[in-house]
């Protein structure tokens, strides 16, 4: 027997021994829940059953009154800055770059969507409304004119809302207005505060009262200024050569194709010479945010395949195409403006040549 075979046999033997003896095939028990069970005798059961029957005879406890729904604060009232108190106030603290609660309160909490009464199919058949009532979203009681009444009463049928709708109305189909219906009127801009003199006389009571609102605004203004200064300083420290990367999602293939088709429809090569039809030009153009090409930015970035004169003709045809079809603005997503602000269009007439 060869040495290799011996080594293999020994190794296999060791492996099998370890597998069986070492617990390789042992697995942890599956987890399961454990619940304690107590055995009771028949007497004990009867006794417990008799006690529960006696307890049913006792009156049910009075239901406790529902807690009053907490009144939601009116967003309008929150946003109104607190009125200045007439009493004198201590000198204002130094401005701190913190957001005042008044600004945070300007965003009202959206009201919770209204509860739908019965605009969905009930899971089980429900009783129809009373026969004398007709379906109506507004529930009214029946009014029967009384003969002895002093004032004549108009007869009115009882109405009740439908218990269930004929079709399911999902929440997605509801036209719930989540936007706030009212917004706080923005406060008038406070007058610019004059620079305080180094030594100022103590303000009188009335002056202090009127300054309270402006101080709050001034604090905010100083905070914004400080933040802007900091941001500007940060921008200056950044590497100036690095271009700002476009924000937002990239242009999809469909959006690019739509732009390509739009320009193609105006690219008229019928009046181009053979030389110009053999010239590929790359035209750079900048678009404004409404998708309109800025005429003065259209330039020929490069050309290939033809003479300068032919490239000039080809460029003019390309420029006409861009301006004509972009006169009303190309249909481009505004959110991706950074991506299509600058465009390089390659006009390749290879397939338009006379074959």
């Amino acid at each position: 027997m060869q040495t290799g075979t011996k080594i293999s046999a020994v190794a296999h033997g060791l492996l099998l021994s370890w597998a069986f003896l070492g617990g390789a095939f042992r697995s942890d028990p599956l987890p399961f829940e454990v619940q304690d069970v107590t055995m009771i005798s028949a007497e004990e059961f009867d006794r417990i059953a008799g006690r529960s029957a006696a307890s049913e005879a006792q009156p049910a406890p009075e239901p406790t009154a529902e807690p009053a729904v907490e009144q939601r604060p009116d967003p309008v009232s929150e946003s109104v800055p607190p009125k200045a108190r007439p009493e004198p106030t201590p000198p204002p603290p130094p401005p701190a770059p913190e957001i005042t609660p008044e600004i945070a309160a300007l965003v009202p909490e959206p009201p919770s969507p209204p509860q739908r009464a019965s605009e969905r199919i009930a899971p089980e058949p429900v009783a129809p409304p009373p026969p004398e009532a007709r379906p109506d979203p507004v529930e009214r009681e029946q009014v029967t004119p009384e003969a002895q009444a002093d004032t004549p009463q108009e007869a009115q049928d009882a109405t009740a809302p439908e218990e269930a709708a004929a079709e399911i109305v999902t929440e997605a189909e509801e036209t719930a207005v989540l936007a706030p219906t009212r917004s706080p009127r923005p406060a008038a801009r406070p007058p610019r505060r004059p620079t305080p003199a180094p030594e100022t006389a103590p303000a009188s009571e009335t002056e202090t009262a009127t300054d309270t609102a402006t101080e709050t605004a001034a604090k905010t203004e100083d905070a914004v200024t400080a933040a802007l200064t900091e941001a500007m300083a940060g921008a200056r420290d950044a590497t100036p050569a690095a271009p700002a990367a476009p924000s937002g999602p990239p242009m999809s293939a469909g959006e690019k194709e739509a732009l390509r088709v739009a320009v193609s429809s105006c690219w008229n090569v019928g009046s181009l010479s053979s030389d110009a039809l053999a010239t590929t030009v790359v035209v750079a153009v900048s678009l404004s945010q409404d998708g309109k090409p800025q005429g003065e930015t259209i330039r020929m970035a490069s050309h290939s395949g033809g003479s300068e004169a032919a490239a000039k003709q080809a460029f003019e045809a390309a420029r006409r195409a861009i301006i004509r079809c972009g006169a009303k603005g190309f249909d481009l997503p505004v959110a991706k403006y950074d991506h299509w602000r600058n465009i390089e269009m390659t006009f390749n007439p290879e397939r338009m040549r006379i074959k």
Partner: protein
Amino acid sequence: MTRFLLCFLLGWAFVAHSAAAQDGGPLRIEITEGVIEPMPFAVPDFVPDSPAATEVASQIARVIAADLAGTGLFREIPAEAHIGRVSDFNAPIQFADWKAINAQALVTGAVSSSGDRVTVRFRVWDVFSGAELGNGLQFAGSRDGWRRMAHKVADAVYSRITGEGGYFDSRVAFVSESGPKNDRKKRLAIMDYDGANVQYLTDSASIVLAPRFSPSGDRVLYTSFETGFPRIYVLDVGKVQRRVLESKEGTMSFAPRFAPDGQTVVFSLEQGGNTDIYIMDITSGGTTRLTSSPSIDTAPSYSPDGSRIVFESDRSGTQQLYIMPASGGDAKRISFGQGRYGTPVWSPRGDLVAFTKQNKGRFHIGVMRTDGREERLLTASFLDEGPTWAPNGRVIMFARETKGARGETTLYTVDITGRNLRPVRTPGGASDPSWSPLQN
């Protein structure tokens, strides 16, 4: 494994390209499909500087518009549709008025008249760019030559927009025909390219054939049967004087054509039942034989650089096209399609050869590359023949004859794309056109 690597590389290239497209650079798109349609243009009446110039100013504008629209590359927006008015040649253009009617090119001009002299000034505008194409230009001439001035303006406009030369200020020599086919009278005539200003150069006493302009446009070669035999004549167009080119007794000379130098004529000479191609120096009368095959070699035409000659020959059994060096020698066949090919003419650009093709009982005018590739038939009719090139190599004129004993022969033009087939207005029947170069 190879496939896996290929997929990996393609995927990597796609990702790299996508990343590159999003690295903050411009959005890049490639446009390979465009449209081919006439460009809308407007030519409002030119502004006259005096009441005497009013009529000619309007006429010049109309001829310019007709020239441009006749190319098929442009479409005139009629004056009735114009919103803007040009009442002052130097006033700034209100481009919005012309954009509103989708005029992409605008030609404005002014005409001044002083005695018999007429001066035309004009500018060409790219409406949507709001820019002028080229600079303003001025032509001056006699009042009688107003059509030529209009053609020159149209040539300049055409050239500035398309990038290639125009062909409007050119003339066409042709054979004017009248009478039924069995008694047809033929006269040599010359006219503007658009059929205006027809002049007759010969009377109808004898049959004339195949006029051919010289490269400078001052002379015309043609074949006449005055003596009963075909003889080649050279006619001075300006003086209407002619002289016969010497030829050997007992031979027939025909199908002459000038070489690009204007001093040499290449022609066919039939001798003893064999037709070969010769060249002749006009001044000395010396001839040189270029082909010597037992077949019929005829219809020679020089390349623009004068280095090669295309001709037709039946040496293969059927009429086909061949190219040989201008000094003679080995000829290379370039036509291999079905049917018979004849009357080849080399394009002024040098890239194409126009020809007449007869196949399955129909005639075609076609073009092909000088190596025979990309054959393209432009027309098809009962009888189309005799193509001649416009000076810019973009348009071909030919003669079309209708069926029957009283069938008429008419001149037509067609673009080398096969579009824009148009008849040319002539006083009567016309055949054998020869387009002159642009006039000076």
